[in-house]
Every structure is written in structure tokens, then in C-alpha cells.
């Protein structure tokens, strides 16, 4: 305790206002420039799994160089609090990054977004309280953007992480007047931000502004359902980057602007890809009400046309197959079936069967999540096929095994213009010789609609848990 008091005393005794926008030494500028180039290279190397780990190394070197250069800036004179912060961060971050199961990666990334955005927001707040009304209008506007994006991404990401961890309800939470309320809070935040710029000396405007931004983040993400999380997490990724970029405008630091802009555009592209894969718009994801599912029609479609099989029969079908595709959905991860599927892959490959995985862009809880889960189950990445690459191949497949996916293989999206999911890109599994769907029941997916695939002539239903079913198929196949 006395140690802390003395540190505070030292800090208090040594405080002195540094002129804003102090010029940086040339060597720091050169190191920042090198770091910016390493960051760009880092993303370029991520384009292929072959070079991706070099990309991480480039990013790490750029980051380490930039941090060390910053510690040598003449205006940085006190290291005690920085050292404490570094220590806490390293102790906290290592278990977070290394112990988290791969199924929980989306919520961990949402938490990292929250931390990054909080840092940006707090630096904006600190700048405001350090320099207050002496700041120019353009800097105050930048602080406004930094704080708005930072605080809303902070609470929004915490809510998203809560939903992904299923601490918060994952069902869409809609209530009357929801959009009016959300937009009112956003408008109030923007007005409060404008007041910060116009009357920065007023002690009340900034705290009110912060409170409104925090509240807006909660109100924006809370109503959105679990099925839309891939888009939401990509969008929050973009916001977190933009808040870091805005911080670069506040501190007049181009490295921050570049680092933030890279994430800003990356998150934006991913959010666009997710929206396209669900055939929805941003506005629809953020403010759309989920239409009530048209129930009751399922009997007309399924009635008398469902053919059920067991593990023994599936094994017999696979025994005669030469080309097999496996289509995993999020249900596979819920059932923790990825390692069982990895074993089935090994077994089929050892019997000279060609096995490919067909992966829909929204197959997991975030963009690319299913690929990570399957890579963890030791499936080589050259067998993980994206939708556009595998769709022309289905007609040559003897057997397709669908495990834990539903809406993304619903042929109505392609064939029935009146379907609620009409136009959504799907995996054309119905073109294959035989389709085996592993599913607990005929219950609908996120879209809440029946799937005519299940009643198709070439489709067989295997009603079971996703993991047990695969293990039983392996056991039967080994007998043959």
C-alpha cells in the first residue's frame, strides 16, 4: 500500500503538461513506418495457410518495435504504471489465449474487441481531461468519434460475448418500439458528442456523452439473435479498428491510423461476406425484426416421405462409395463431434475413399470458425472446400453426409422464390447420389422453416446425436 502511495506521490510530483502534438524524433518515425509496412505484409502473408504463420511473426515484430520505440519517446517519462499495466496484461492474456477451447474462440475474440475498444475510448477520455477546452475543433471531433466507437464497441462486444457464451439469451429479443428507442439513443449520443465539441469546458457534457455511448452499445446488440452473430462479430471487429484509427487522429499518430484502418476494412469485408451468405443487409441484421416462422407446413412436405436409416445401413452405403463429401454445421460443434468426424475422415481415406468437406460461410459462430474446428481435428486444410469450390462437385459425389447443418442445405433457398430464405446461397448437396442427414429430429434451423431436402428421394435421415452417430458409423464401418 505504501509502495502504491509513493508511486502516486512520484507521479503527482513530476507532472508537467507536455505540449500537444510534440514532434517525434526521426528514428521513432522511421520505426513506426517500418511497423506499418510489417502490418500490411502480415495481412498479405495471411492469404494462404502456407505463409500465414510468417504473417503473425511480421505482425509481432512490427508491434514489438513500435512499443519499444514508444517507450523511448522523450515525452514518456514515467514507467512505473506502464510496467504494472504490462505485467497485469501478460498474466491475464496468456491463459486467455492458450487455454480457451476452439469452440469458444468467437467469444474470446469478442472480449479482445472489448478490450481494444475500451483502451481507445479511455485514451480519448484521458486526452479530453488532460487538455480539455484547449483542444482544437478537429481534435475534439476526433475524440468524439473515438469515444463513440470505443464505448459502444466495448459494451456491444461484451453483450455479444455474453450471447456467444450463452450467459445472455441467444434468441432474438424484439420488443415494440425497439428501433425507435435505439435510434433515439444514437441520436442523443451524437447530439451529446456535438455538445462536447461546441462547449468542451462544460463539466457535464462528456460524462453524459460516455453514458449514452455505453448504453447504445448494449441496446444495439442485445436484441440480435445468435444466428446473426457471425455478422455482428465482424461488424464489431470493424468498429474496434475504426476507434483505434480515430485515436490516431486525436494523437496525430499515423501508425495508429493505419493499424486501425486495416482492421476497420477487414471487419467491414467480413461483415459484407456474412450478410451476402445469409442474403440479408446490414440494416436488416441490425434493425430487422425476425419474421414469425410460418409453421404447420412441415407436415405437407415431410408426410410419408421421410426415410430413416441406422449406423449399419450408413456404413454399408459408405462401403460402396468412392467420393464422399461431409457438410458440417454449427450443430457439429455443439455436439463436440469434430474429432469423431476427424476419425471418420481418416478411416475413409485409409479405405481409398476421396473425402472433401463443404463449408458454408456461416457454418460456425463467426467467419471461418468451422475451418478452425476441423483443422483442430487434424483434417488437412486442402480438404476444406469453400462453398463456391465444392458446389460444382456435388453431382460427382456418391454420398454427402450433412451433420448439424440445416438452412444452408435447404434447396428452397435456390428453387422457391416465395421462401423466407429465397436467394440465400446454399450448398447444393441434393445434387449428390445419396444424402445422409445426421440430425436429432426434424426440428427447423435458425430460419424456422421446414427443409424439403429431408423428404427428397435421395435423402436418408439418421436421427441421432451428431457425435454418437459418427462414432457408431465408424464402429460399423470397421466391421466391414
Amino acid at each position, binding site marked *: 500500500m505504501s509502495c502504491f502511495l509513493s508511486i502516486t506521490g512520484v507521479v503527482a510530483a513530476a507532472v508537467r503538461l507536455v505540449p500537444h502534438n510534440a514532434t517525434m524524433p526521426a528514428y521513432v518515425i522511421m520505426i513506426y513506418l517500418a511497423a506499418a509496412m510489417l502490418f500490411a505484409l502480415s495481412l498479405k502473408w495471411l492469404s494462404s495457410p502456407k505463409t500465414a504463420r510468417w504473417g503473425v511473426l511480421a505482425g509481432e515484430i512490427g508491434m514489438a518495435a513500435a512499443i519499444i520505440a514508444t517507450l523511448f519517446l522523450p515525452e514518456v517519462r514515467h*514507467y512505473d504504471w506502464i510496467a504494472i499495466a504490462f505485467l497485469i496484461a*501478460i498474466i491475464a492474456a496468456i491463459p486467455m*489465449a492458450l487455454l480457451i477451447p476452439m469452440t469458444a474462440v468467437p467469444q474470446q475474440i469478442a472480449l479482445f474487441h472489448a478490450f481494444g475498444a475500451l483502451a481507445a475510448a479511455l*485514451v480519448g477520455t484521458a*486526452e479530453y481531461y488532460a487538455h480539455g477546452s484547449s483542444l482544437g475543433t478537429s481534435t475534439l471531433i476526433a475524440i468524439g468519434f473515438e469515444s463513440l466507437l470505443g464505448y459502444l464497441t466495448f459494451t456491444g462486444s461484451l453483450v455479444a460475448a455474453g450471447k456467444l457464451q450463452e450467459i445472455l439469451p441467444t434468441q432474438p429479443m424484439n420488443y415494440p418500439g425497439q428501433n425507435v428507442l435505439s435510434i433515439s439513443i444514437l441520436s442523443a449520443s451524437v447530439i451529446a458528442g456535438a455538445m462536447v465539441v461546441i462547449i468542451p469546458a462544460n463539466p457535464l457534457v462528456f460524462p453524459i456523452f460516455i453514458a449514452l455511448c455505453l448504453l447504445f452499445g448494449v441496446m444495439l446488440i442485445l436484441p440480435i439473435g445468435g444466428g446473426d452473430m457471425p455478422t455482428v462479430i465482424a461488424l464489431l471487429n470493424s468498429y474496434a479498428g475504426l476507434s483505434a484509427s480515430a485515436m490516431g487522429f486525436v494523437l496525430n499518430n499515423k501508425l495508429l491510423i493505419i493499424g486501425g484502418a486495416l482492421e476497420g476494412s477487414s*471487419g467491414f469485408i467480413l461483415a459484407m461476406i456474412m450478410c451476402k451468405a445469409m442474403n440479408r443487409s446490414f440494416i436488416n441484421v441490425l434493425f430487422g425484426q425476425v419474421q414469425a416462422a410460418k409453421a404447420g407446413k412441415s407436415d405437407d412436405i415431410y408426410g410419408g416421405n421421410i426415410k430413416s436409416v441406422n449406423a449399419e445401413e450408413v456404413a454399408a452405403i459408405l462401403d460402396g462409395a468412392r467420393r464422399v463429401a461431409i457438410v458440417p454445421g454449427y450443430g457439429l460443434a455443439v455436439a463436440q463431434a469434430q474429432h469423431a468426424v476427424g476419425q471418420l475422415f481418416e478411416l475413409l481415406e485409409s479405405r481409398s475413399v476421396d473425402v472433401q468437406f463443404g463449408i458454408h460461410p456461416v457454418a460456425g459462430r463467426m467467419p*471461418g470458425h468451422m475451418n478452425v474446428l476441423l483443422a483442430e481435428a487434424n483434417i488437412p486444410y486442402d480438404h476444406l472446400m469453400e462453398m463456391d469450390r465444392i458446389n460444382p462437385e456435388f453431382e460427382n459425389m456418391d454420398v454427402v453426409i450433412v451433420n448439424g447443418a440445416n438452412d444452408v442445405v435447404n434447396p428452397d433457398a435456390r428453387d422457391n422464390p416465395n421462401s423466407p430464405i429465397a436467394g440465400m446461397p446454399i450448398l447444393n448437396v441434393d445434387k449428390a447420389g445419396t444424402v445422409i442427414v445426421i440430425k436429432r429430429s426434424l426440428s427447423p434451423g435458425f430460419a424456422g422453416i421446414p427443409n424439403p431436402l429431408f423428404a427428397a428421394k435421395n435423402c436418408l435421415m439418421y436421427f441421432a446425436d451428431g457425435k454418437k452417430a459418427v462414432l457408431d458409423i465408424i464402429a460399423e464401418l470397421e466391421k466391414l
Partner: protein
Amino acid sequence: MSPSLESNLFVFALAAFLGYEVVRRVSPQLHTPLMSLTNAISAISVVGAIAVTGAGHNTTMVVVLGTIAVTASMINVVGGFLMTDRMLKMFKKRKSN
């Protein structure tokens, strides 16, 4: 418009464009590591947090906010890079046996 704001806007626009062009080429297989890596890179905001905290401005509040900001962004840096590498390590080609 001040010269610094002008050059900052140019840098932002070009960096956003560069990000768009580079990220567009990233294989969809790697979209999760991509998000994790860009997030770690944008935690470069730790640099700003260090500058604000280390300057030790005239109020305790600034130091407190700065210290929390350094902690939060440093968690983002360390955790982001470690988790990205952990995921990428699992992406292997077919075993040669």
C-alpha cells in the same frame, strides 16, 4: 483544415483501401485467424495509451485512465497474437506417411 488533419485523412483513406485489397485475397479458410490478427494489429493503440500514461499529465485521473488503457490494449496485443498463432499452427497439409 490543418496540414496534419489533411495528411491523416490521406493516410486513413489509403490504408483502408490497402486493407480492403489485401484482406479480399485472404482465403475464407483463414477468416477467423484474420479477424484475430487484425484485432491484435489494431491494438497498436497501446502505443497511444503508453504516450498518454507515460507523459504523466496534471491529473491523477489521466494516469488512472491511461494505465487501464495500457492494460486493456496490451491484453489485446499479447492475447491476439498468441491465439492467432495457436489457430494457424493447426492448419496442416496432408501428413506425408
